């Protein structure tokens, strides 16, 4: 008489309850995945509310969809530059808004740069023109000659001023530089009683008549309908009075066709890639492999959702970050499954092997992921542009993959085991041990 170790003893009955649970879960996951990728035109059924595919809610970088990207730099970087650049951002935003494009981003970068990106724009040359045009503010004499320009104006404000009759009226108050003061004094003397037009980018924004010779560099423009009008005019004058000239240091335009091509081909490649990984994992690791595929689907859904929710702009380097994190998600599962296999080879029961496998793999997964996370975090803090985009998707990817590859996969694997259908070690990658 002898004891026979029987690790593959099929003592477990098939649990119908758990089979149903698993099937429901898979169906729900499949439906969720389908809805997220293809959307759900609810309006056709209930008359309103469409669920758009998540892929269309993600912001894609210009390298993927096409568009215009410009970085402008102030010629000098001294005191006050930062302020001037800030004001320029507002002006440029107004100009771009006049083009009627959707979701342009205009941001100040550092103290002396402005970064502009306009996705999906058809007339790219026009956009470049309107961005590149330096606002020219000029004070024009009746004969059209330029008296002074924007740089001679120090300040412009809209405010109330009391007239000689004691009535409060809205005016635009102007302050000139010493040079401007001299020029304006000469002009007001010469053109007394005539109109000195204030012209911005070829358009007269105000045409006041000279009612006094102004020699102290402080003038007001009367006759404003409201304080709002006065403030708006003041802002235009001040805006035109850009103390810095901006030059484009980086221009990139990508035509819509070229961009679309890059996006659709990357999507296609990513799809095929994931499919092949699925096949590979199932062939290698059987049941756990299949479970890891479910985990990977959850991973993809969550990552896409976060990208859309955080309004992350997905660029080519961003995709690289995602690839790396998918790689790490798969790796976490490979590490776990190899551990489970090792435990099984030692003759332990499946449930115990699963438990031990996850436990023993944890330190490895934590250490390798934390190291990569550190890299991501540092790059996100110190990097700019490309590097930042890469770091952000990498960090999101690592966090999500830790969750799906460890937590989700574990629960799913236990559930699959508890169905009783896959109660033999061979389904978990371990060969039948010859005793």
């Amino acid at each position: 008489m002898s004891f026979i170790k029987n690790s593959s003893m099929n003592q477990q009955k098939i649990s119908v309850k758990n089979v149903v649970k698993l099937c429901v879960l898979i169906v729900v996951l499949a439906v969720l995945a389908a809805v997220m990728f293809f959307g759900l035109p609810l309006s056709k059924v209930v008359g309103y509310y469409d669920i758009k595919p998540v892929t269309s809610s993600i912001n894609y970088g210009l390298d993927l969809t096409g568009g215009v990207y410009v970085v402008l730099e102030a010629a000098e970087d001294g005191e006050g530059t930062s302020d001037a650049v800030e004001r320029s951002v507002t002006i440029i935003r107004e100009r771009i808004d006049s083009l009627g494009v959707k979701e342009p981003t205009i941001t100040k970068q550092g103290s002396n740069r402005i970064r502009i990106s306009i996705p999906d724009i058809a007339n790219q040359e026009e956009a470049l023109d309107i961005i590149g045009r330096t606002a020219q503010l000029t004070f024009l004499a009746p004969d059209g000659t330029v008296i002074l320009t924007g740089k001679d104006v120090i300040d412009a404000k809209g405010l109330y001023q009391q007239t000689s009759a004691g009535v409060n009226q809205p005016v635009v108050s102007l302050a000139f530089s010493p040079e401007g003061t001299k020029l304006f004094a000469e002009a007001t003397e010469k053109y007394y009683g005539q109109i000195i037009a204030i012209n911005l980018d070829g358009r007269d924004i105000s045409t006041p008549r000279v009612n006094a010779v102004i020699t102290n560099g402080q003038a007001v423009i009367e006759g404003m309908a409201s304080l709002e009008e006065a403030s708006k005019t003041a802002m235009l004058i001040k805006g035109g009075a850009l103390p810095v000239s901006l030059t484009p240091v980086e221009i990139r335009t990508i035509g819509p066709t070229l961009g679309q091509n890059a996006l659709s081909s990357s999507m296609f490649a990513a799809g095929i890639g994931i499919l092949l990984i699925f096949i590979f994992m199932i062939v290698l690791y059987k049941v756990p492999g299949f479970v890891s595929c479910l985990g990977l689907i959850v991973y993809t859904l969550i990552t896409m959702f976060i990208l859309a929710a955080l309004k992350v702009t997905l660029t080519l380097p961003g995709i690289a970050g995602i690839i790396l994190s998918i790689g790490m998600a798969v790796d976490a599962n490979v590490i776990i499954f190899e551990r489970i296999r090792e435990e099984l080879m030692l003759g332990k029961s499946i449930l115990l092997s699963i438990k031990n496998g996850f436990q023993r793999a944890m330190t490895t997964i934590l250490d390798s992921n934390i190291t990569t996370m550190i890299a991501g975090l540092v790059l996100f803090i110190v990097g700019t542009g490309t590097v930042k985009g890469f770091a952000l998707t990498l960090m999101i990817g690592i966090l999500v993959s830790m969750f799906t590859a460890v937590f989700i996969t574990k629960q799913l694997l236990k559930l699959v085991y508890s169905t009783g259908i896959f109660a033999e070690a061979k389904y978990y990658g371990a060969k039948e041990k010859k005793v």
Partner: protein
Amino acid sequence: MRLHITKHAKTFFLISLVLIVVGMGFLFTKGLNYGIDFQGGTIVNIELGKEFTTEEVRTITDKYDKNAVITYGGEQKTQAIVSTKLDLSEEVRKAMFADFQTTYQLEDSALLSIDKVSPAVGGEMARQSLWATIFVVICMLIYITIRFELWFGVAAILCLLHDVLIMLSVYAIMQIEVNTPFIAAILTILGYSINDTIVVFDRIRENRKSYGKYDYVTLVDDSITQTLRRSINTTLTTLIAITTLYIFGVADIRDFALPLIVGFVGGAYSSIFIASPLWYKLQEAADKRKKNKIDTKPGKKTGYKKQKA
């Protein structure tokens, strides 16, 4: 089963050394093919709508820059990609496109893309990326030293250096343009390789408790053997993903995917054959130094103690 990797450590070091030396040879003779992202310049992509010869395009571009490079683009090779190291002003660039428009009767939409980077910005980006990478490596070294030991950290970082040098060699040998994707590619390999190395080191750390303190050879060889299936399977899955990207991707993505493929293979190689033997050599040398130090000061640190059961 046990792979005797440590025994042949010198052979593996030599293989890597030869590869790197050859790569560096290319790097110093041919240099890296810096694209406009790093050194500034202008690239204009124009759809001419028909086949053309570079000579005929050159008659236009010569007016603006005699050194401009003209390459074909698009599936039917009907796109002219004009790249110049000059940071063309907007006026000049427009004038050039206008010339194309009159010669080939083109609509405005024929201008597929413009990339224009001033040299100052390009240099800045290169510097920034370099500093970011160095900073990252230092942080990783600190973390590994805390979680493992100093020599694990040093070995891991040397491995990273190894992988980066291999990647640089690929860029130098194939003369792939070094642009923004280059940074992303290098960073991906850094992340992948450190991950790969840590997995093996983690096994060494775990096994070390049960192995004799100075039986490093068996310890290292066993740890590598135990993690080998994982190393191979993970590398294969990652390679599958990146190879599909290479096959189905557009030109930009291919330029990005190819160095990655080489990087992944190099990274896997280094974490199996280089990282652990390197740690072994470093640790052994460190242990020897420590021993010698103790020996020279008799009675100071050494002493008799009751033997543990």
